[in-house]
């Protein structure tokens, strides 16, 4: 049984440049002080980071696929999840258009048990 290749994604400099401001904002959330500000008043934190209305909308909607399309690095999304109370798996399930339960049902661990 051969597995079909996934959609090919390479995070290039050009892609990175488009999402640079958002990636930088999310990576800043590795500092406790920035997490505190973001959790208390996300609008003020986004304003201070100079995000555009489009970028703020992606964050308000938790549109992670949209953020990736906008050039945000996957590991920056992981840090955003830390301040949004979302695990990497919850972010991933959203990118697939699934609930976590739907996603987990497709996993080898659960397929073996069923």
């Amino acid at each position, binding site marked *: *049984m*051969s*597995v079909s*290749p*996934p*959609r*090919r*994604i*390479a*995070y*290039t*400099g050009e892609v*990175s440049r488009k999402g*640079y401001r958002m*990636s*930088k904002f999310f*990576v800043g*959330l*590795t*500092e*406790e002080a920035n*997490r505190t500000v973001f959790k208390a008043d996300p609008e003020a934190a986004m304003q201070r980071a100079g995000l555009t209305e489009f970028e703020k909308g992606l964050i308000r909607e938790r549109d992670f*696929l949209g953020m*990736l399309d906008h050039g945000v*690095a*996957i*590991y*920056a999304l*992981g*840090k955003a*999840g*830390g*301040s949004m109370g979302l695990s*990497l*798996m919850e972010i*991933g*399930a959203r*990118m*697939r*258009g699934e609930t976590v339960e739907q*996603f*987990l049902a*497709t*996993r*080898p*661990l659960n397929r073996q048990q069923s």
Partner: protein
Amino acid sequence: MARIVGGIGSSHAPSIAFAWDAGHRDRPEWKPFFDAYDPVKDWMAALRPDTVVVIYNDHFNRFRLDTYPTFALGCADLMPVADEGRGKRPLPDVPGNSDLSWHLSRSLVADEFDITMCQEMALDHGVMSILPLVTDAPWKVKVVPLAVNVILHPLPSVRRCWKLGEALARGIASFPADERVVVMATGGLSHQLQGADFGFLNPEWDEEFLDRVEKDPESLLDMTHDELMDRGGAEGVEVIMWLAMRGALRGPQRRIQRNYWAPVLTGYGLLALEPDASGN
């Protein structure tokens, strides 16, 4: 003279760190994974390495997108564990080996690897999801971290990583102190985190990779990043770091451990090799 006494390839993941810290090692999705590290930890205890050189990638915890080095060597005597965005882990700071690091810096640059030298090196799950699985805290070994760019394309080629491993071995061999060194690479195996194919796994490729990296690593050196990503997913390209570890091991190797477990998100691979004294 310093010498390499063992090599380890292992996947890394934030979820491994969470499971470890939360005490989930006996849960069904984790038990086959964590159990496989026990013989490696025993072997490490018997090997008594002074230093582990860890070839890994950072995930914006030391390097950010403003400055992203292709190869970066930690040259510090104490390194903190990074806060990756969800708070600090309950692990002690990690001792480094700056004498060896500066020696390796000179040796690698003389060998045409123009590495970035880092006197501060917060260590993220690229090192710290695996270190507690192969040696106990408080840390008895020193760590020399060697970070490789596997995130922001263009990435170094597979062959370049192999040559880095060869150069690393030359640098270790020319270090005048009597040091026992283990070279460990982390990353892979198949996984894709980015986009609608989140959760992509390819156990068939992962088992093939484990075979070839052990027995015929040079057969992998001409693979392109696109080929690696087609077979192992976008983040599966991290396996290029295993070739750097493998390039550092010369001559026949005895296999100490091999394990594969792909329960949910990532194909977790583990391989431990020891230079076979009888074959040299």
